[in-house]
């Protein structure tokens, strides 16, 4: 499957859920220092579900398109379900096959989502 098919380039150039959430419950930024990719994730929870999610950042097509597709997928989902996602699940969600050297580009947004969910104080939310 061609990694750079039109829908990937579309998500890269017109990322969904791009922007900041002012009253987010958690804001987490992670970086891949080897290539300079940065994803800053904003999340707002309602009980155990992801109510609002957005991101800002810069990076390669794989990193940005993954963040775009993954935030689309995560919206409304149960946080436990998101925490259980593996790299294989992620690749199915974003519908690409990646070489070993590029998996870290896609994984950046998954790690950032998981970390931001974990950082929310759940007792306060329930």
């Amino acid at each position, binding site marked *: 499957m*061609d*990694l*750079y098919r039109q829908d990937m*380039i579309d998500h890269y*150039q017109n990322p969904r859920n791009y922007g900041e959430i002012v009253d987010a419950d958690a804001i987490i930024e992670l970086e891949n220092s*080897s*290539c*300079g*990719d940065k994803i800053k994730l904003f999340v707002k929870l309602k009980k155990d579900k992801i109510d609002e999610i957005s991101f800002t950042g*810069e*990076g*390669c*097509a*794989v*990193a940005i398109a993954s963040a775009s597709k993954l935030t689309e997928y995560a919206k409304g989902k149960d946080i436990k379900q998101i925490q259980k996602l593996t790299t294989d699940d992620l690749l199915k969600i974003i519908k690409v096959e990646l*070489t070993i050297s*590029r998996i870290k*580009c896609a994984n950046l947004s998954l790690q950032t989502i998981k970390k931001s969910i974990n950082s929310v104080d759940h007792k306060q939310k329930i």
Partner: protein
Amino acid sequence: MVSCWGCRWYINGYIYVHELMNKSDFPIFNNNPDLVYLDNSATTQKPQVVIDSIVDFYQNFNSNVHRGIHKLAEKATIEFENARGNIARFVGAKPEEIIFTSGTTESMNILAQILFEHFKDSKGKKTIMLSEMEHHSNILPWMMLVSKLGWDIEYAKLTEEYELDLECLYDVIKKNDVSILSLTHMSNVLGTINNLGAIFSEVKSISPDIFCIGDGAQYVPHHKIDLSNSKSIDFYAFSGHKMMGPTGIGVLYGKKNLLEKLNPSKVGGGMISTVKRNSFTTAELPEKFEAGTPNIAGAIGLSKAVDYLKRQDTLEIEKHMSELTRFTLDELRNIKELTLYGPPVFEKRGPVFSFSIEGIHPHDIAQILDQDNIAIRAGHHCCQILHRETLKIPASARASLYIYNDIENVKRLSNSIKKLITQFKR
């Protein structure tokens, strides 16, 4: 286009000598016929003779060197020391001035540790001077040395044309107590060639006691160097694998009178003369700095690579590379979406072309070129300071050429770049 040994042809007004060496000497190109390999600043491909020499060592005379009486040890020692002599002659050095290391990185680490031993009891705050275009291998060992000695580190700035700002460099040396100056001979990102002989001479006329060190990892594969005639170069480092030799072998060169005065930082087998319960005396040069079993096969392989290079006509190679550099510069400059880094004048640079394209990440550029079987590199190329502070980009894409590359390779590169720009066009 038919390729032939030394045949000349014209394209875009340039005269070309195509295929100085036979590409079929390199098994990788026979095994990957469509490969356009443009990642030579990272490592070069190996001719069959180099591969054979390594196999020959392990199959026919594998043995440890020095102090062996048996025939195999004798043969291994002779071949290993012949390799040292051959490599020494190639760079205009004496055999005892050639210390085998695993590569430029280890050479710089060993040198920094040797100089720590030298300076550890000295008083006063001194400065180590580097430049903004240095590879991490020529920054981090000095950073560690500076932190151990409580010294300062200074970086010479670059001009707008990506050359060393020599006025800035000389000014820092005039105003500070600089003890060590270490500069790259050719930048692995910008391709900038620094005239180290002249720069170091000028520096020594300002302050004669500065240790002047050259990082030759990128320069030696492309240019003839005569270290014994470069009086101002005190130490010099280079790697075997960037000049068609195997990985894991490299050289630290030091002027004999300096190496004799300095003490080793790495100790153990092979570097001693006598060992008593509480003391030891060191062996003569160069063993004094080569503790442990050396990379014997690596040294033999590198010597074969040197032989292979020596068989070529040096002038023809230099001409081929400078014409190829000029052609590549023109090809890439014609792509208006592409920003090319490095000196604009082809005479001032080697065949290393780092570039960026607005709106397309270097990793995506490299991946798409790979789909067309063109191997380039993307990232910070071990030069984060240069990327972050000078170029002001997180990463770049880099195509780097070597003697087996030709004009067809460059055309494939520029065509694929043009294609990917269209693919990403909004």
